[in-house]
């Protein structure tokens, strides 16, 4: 039974956590792609930036002597999301909008987003140094151990407090996005513009407003995802740069431009990663005595150090077998 608990901890809980972060990032990328038709490479750094904004607010709140029953980062998160949305708008105004006005091709915008990536990274490291920070410098992370002894297991299922927040907030964010896109006038306008930008313009939809709303949503979701990631691990300047690639894989696997696809893609990639590096031999351990000797002790599909390659292998297979993604993305 302990082996099964190990599986739950290593694969299901980790996959859920990873999937939440990937999903929130991929939704932003897919929305931006749907509206503006370019792959926004700086999204990972938008996440890092958001996490740093939250961190600064947390420090400020602590300095003001504010105490709360929930982690301070969660308390200041709404404000941080607003600030991050503003930053995203500013980045668009400063760097992407002038290029769009000139009628630059999406590829040029993609290259510009690389420039933005480098600038954000440079600035963050300039101000914060390269050191690693933790949201839990003073108070230790609360850890929940769910006792599984009634199933005959001696080990508990382990979930940390930020992980629970992360999964809960992801569900809330996804539901909010769903209602926004299907119920509100602006959300439908966004879908219309992603579907057919020319017709949206002809219909009198204020396309500039839609673009702004897109950046606001993408920026605030990026802040949420970045903060969650920083809470779960630690806050580093290259926090999200390392996960931008799996996030892109998630967005493409889900079909670029498809919000629901991006969410599904995020969880798919998240679980695939945890399952690929999981040592399946663990599950065989109870039957070890009855099994032949030649079965090795390590049955992970790929060694842990190759975790990053899992997302790409999925991506490449999807691109080759079903290039529009599993949920039929927009073609451009």
């Amino acid at each position, binding site marked *: 039974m302990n082996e099964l608990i190990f599986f739950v901890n290593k694969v299901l809980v980790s996959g859920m956590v990873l999937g939440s972060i990937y999903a929130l990032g991929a939704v932003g990328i897919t929305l931006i*792609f749907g509206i503006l038709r*370019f*792959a926004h490479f700086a999204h990972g750094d938008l996440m890092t930036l958001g996490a740093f904004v939250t961190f600064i607010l947390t420090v400020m709140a602590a300095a003001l002597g504010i105490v709360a029953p929930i982690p301070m980062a969660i308390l200041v998160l709404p404000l941080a999301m607003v600030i991050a949305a503003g930053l995203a708008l500013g980045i668009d105004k400063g*760097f992407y909008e*002038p*290029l769009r006005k*000139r009628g*630059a091709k*999406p*590829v*040029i915008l*993609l*290259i*510009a987003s*690389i*420039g*933005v*990536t*480098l*600038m*954000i*990274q*440079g*600035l963050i*490291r*300039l101000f914060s*140094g*390269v050191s690693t920070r933790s949201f839990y410098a003073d108070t230790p992370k609360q850890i929940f151990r769910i006792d599984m002894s009634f199933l005959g297991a001696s080990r508990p299922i382990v979930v940390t407090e930020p992980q629970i927040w992360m999964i809960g907030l992801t569900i809330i964010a996804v539901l909010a996005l769903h209602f926004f896109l299907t119920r509100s006038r602006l959300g439908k306008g966004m879908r219309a513009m992603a579907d057919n930008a020319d017709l949206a313009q002809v219909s009198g939809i204020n396309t500039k407003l839609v673009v702004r709303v897109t950046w606001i949503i993408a920026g605030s979701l990026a802040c949420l995802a970045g903060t969650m990631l920083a809470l779960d691990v630690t806050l580093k300047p290259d926090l999200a740069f390392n996960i931008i*690639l799996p996030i*892109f*894989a998630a967005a*493409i696997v889900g079909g*670029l431009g498809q919000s629901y696809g991006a969410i599904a893609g995020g969880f798919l990639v998240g679980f695939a990663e945890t399952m690929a590096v999981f040592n399946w031999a663990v599950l065989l351990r109870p039957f070890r005595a009855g099994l032949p000797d030649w079965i*090795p002790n390590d049955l992970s599909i790929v*060694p842990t*150090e*190759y975790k*990053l*390659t899992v*997302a*790409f292998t999925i*991506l*490449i297979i999807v*691109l*080759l077998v079903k*290039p529009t993604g599993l949920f039929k993305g927009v073609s*451009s």
Partner: protein
Amino acid sequence: MIRRAALLYFGLAGLIILVALVMGAPFTVRLSVEALALSLIALGLNIQWGYGGLFNFGVMGFIMVGGFAVTFISVPVNIEFWGSEGPFMLLKVLIAAGIGALLIMGANRLHRLGASPRWHRSAQVAAWIVAYIMYRSQIDPAAKYIEAEAGFVGGLGLPVIFGWMFGGLLAAGIAYIIGKIALGLRTDYLAIATIGISEIIRALIKNMDWLTRGTLTVSPIPWPVPRPQDYQAFGVDTFNSFVFARAGYLAVVIVVVIIALFLIQRAYGGPWGRMMRAIRDNHISAASMGKDVKSRQLEIFIFGAVLMGIGGAILTSFAQIYDPGGYQPINHTFIIWVMVIVGGAGNNFGALFGGVFIYIVWVLSEPISQAMFINISQFSEGVGWGAIPDIESRSLQMRVFVLGLVITLALRYAPRGLIPEVVRK
């Protein structure tokens, strides 16, 4: 246009002389070698992006492959490895991989034997899984054994020049595989796919300790010309030995760059270049005129990768150390893009200029920002705000910001680069 290019090159020469006066000769010669090697890589990207319109965000992967190639060829033979069971075990790995490849190829051809599409697909998946398991069952123990007994496989002890050539060749082979997989994709997908593949290459090289020694690094890697210590052995003083040795290396690199430039310019001026431009600007109409767009694009992708591989090899042998942990997308992919965009995509002299110029900016922005920070720090200390902590590591980050700023400014104010493509009718 030619006047403008000449003026820019004069300015660049002036900048290099200025650097030499301030920073000294050994530093400047080293800077020049690295800048030219990166320019060679930028020329490779210019072929792919400027001529072919192919988006390659995996430059780092090719540079790493080139570095591995020169290490493998030129590092001395590891007798411990050849005396052990290692070669035999690797032979078994090769056989397992070969059988696996045959299985996959067989499964790919199954539909010719009349298998239904569903059977065909399942057989393909099964073949891949079996091949992977066979390969892993051989490679895992072999890798463990070699790492324990001999450290790593070592090199072949051949002249460095062969290593550079092998770098180009190996990069070409990998470009062929990548091109076969990814070139049919849309631009943005291609960008992500290439960046992903380069990350996979990095993960492999970093972790295949038995082959590359991974993060343990390999050194010293020999030079094609006498090294500083060789001069010192003849009684030349340290300062001059560095200048002489690096100048010798520089001369070899200049020859390589000139040969590459000559060949590309000739090819580009001829019918091949015309066809490439036609494909880039409108591949649909080019296809309708009977041009085999896909294999032409593959050709150009491989061609560019060869230069990247050679450039990577030159960089590694110059540094005398192969450290897979030292490769970062910023320093090895994005900076090359900045070079090509700022220099002028589609113009070789633009890419060359961009390569040298951007590298100088990149290297110099560190000491300049450091000086700036020290001044600001002294100022803030003077007014009682305290000094800025960690000036060293912070000012190092300044250059990342500068790089980003340069590329966004270039895209906005000089989208065609400083020495733009000459549009030939």
